[in-house]
């Protein structure tokens, strides 16, 4: 087994419940590399996740403390946890449903507050756990289980949303950019503030089967590769291309949320001691 998995993961939960060829495990491998290269230990990191493929397949794989929140609410729980345990690194690994649909409100406000967590939004462009319905990140026109005539709604990029909300580090990569992802995750973890890393990855069982017409793992990863490069395997232009790389880096430029509250407490208590009202000044 991969040495980093032996170092960081929970043996009883490996092999994961992910389907064969699923990008979730690949990305988790890169997360472990980033943690290892930064010298972080298992007890330094709290792993949080949600519901759905990304939630279910990653939950409890982490050997240290971890939580699987209700759908979309991982960031709300992380906000409370960060206040109580501010010295840990928080890796919040959620899917496109959790982050860009049901949990977008919490995503926006965590970014606005500049909560010191790193969100890895692993995006398979649909609700694959429930069989392959479309999500707010499904590309326009694609056929899915709930868009049999083609996706009618426009989609959006959660990177734009968190950037507008005030995130201090925003980046995007795909499942064919292993080195870039490791580097970007390291930078994201170094930001004492809200970091958002958006990683697109292939789903073979559902998105592959219904939107791309094949469950072939190689073809579906090629599809990701094509839309990362902007060119198909036979040299033509793709229907769209993802803009990858660091989109916004204002790392460590704004105070982190839990620190804002701690600093405020210090000021309030200093004033109280000044006035001599002691504790419990009711």
């Amino acid at each position, binding site marked *: 087994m991969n040495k980093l998995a032996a170092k960081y993961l929970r043996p009883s939960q490996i092999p994961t419940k992910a389907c064969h060829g699923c990008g979730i495990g690949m990305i988790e*491998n890169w997360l472990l590399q980033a943690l290892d290269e930064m010298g972080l230990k298992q007890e330094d990191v709290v792993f949080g996740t949600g519901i759905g493929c990304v939630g279910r397949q990653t939950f409890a794989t982490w050997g240290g403390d971890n939580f699987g929140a209700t759908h979309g609410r991982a960031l709300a729980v992380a906000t409370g946890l960060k206040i109580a345990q501010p010295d840990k690194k928080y890796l919040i690994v959620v899917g496109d449903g959790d982050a860009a649909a049901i949990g977008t409100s919490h995503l926006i406000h965590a970014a606005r507050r500049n909560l010191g967590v790193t969100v890895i939004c692993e995006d398979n462009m649909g609700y694959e756990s429930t069989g392959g319905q479309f999500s707010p990140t499904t590309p326009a026109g694609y056929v899915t289980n709930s868009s049999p005539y083609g996706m009618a709604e426009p989609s959006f990029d959660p990177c734009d949303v968190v950037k507008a909300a005030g995130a201090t580090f925003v980046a995007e990569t795909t499942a064919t950019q292993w080195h870039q992802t490791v580097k970007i995750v390291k930078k994201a973890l170094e930001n004492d503030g809200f970091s958002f890393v958006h990683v697109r990855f292939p789903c073979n069982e559902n998105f592959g089967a219904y939107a791309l017409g094949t469950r072939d793992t190689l073809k579906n990863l090629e599809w990701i*590769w094509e839309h990362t490069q902007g060119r198909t395997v036979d040299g033509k232009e793709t229907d769209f291309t993802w803009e990858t790389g660091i989109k916004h880096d204002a790392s460590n430029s704004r105070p982190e949320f839990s620190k804002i509250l701690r600093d405020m407490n210090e000021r309030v208590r200093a004033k109280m001691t000044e006035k001599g009202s002691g504790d419990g000044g009711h």
Partner: protein
Amino acid sequence: MPLFKLEKKAPKAPAGLWDVVISEDMCKACGFCLNICPVDVFAWRKVANKLGWFPMYVAHEGNCVGCMLCYQICPDFCIHVGAKEGQPVAGR
């Protein structure tokens, strides 16, 4: 240019300096490692593993040039690639 190239072109590095280990009972037979490897280290087993997949196995460890692509692409934490004892490369 495809990700999984049919024409394999090995990077310029010496072969035979690397240990390659696959945990076959964790393999879900996605085929990524075999298809990304430029030097044909891997092959399919003919007998299924406990999960019910026909896993990958290390058929030609001596070919390995340490490019680490298989390690990076495996979705199931199966692969370990490390420098053999006493080699100058400290493992990328």
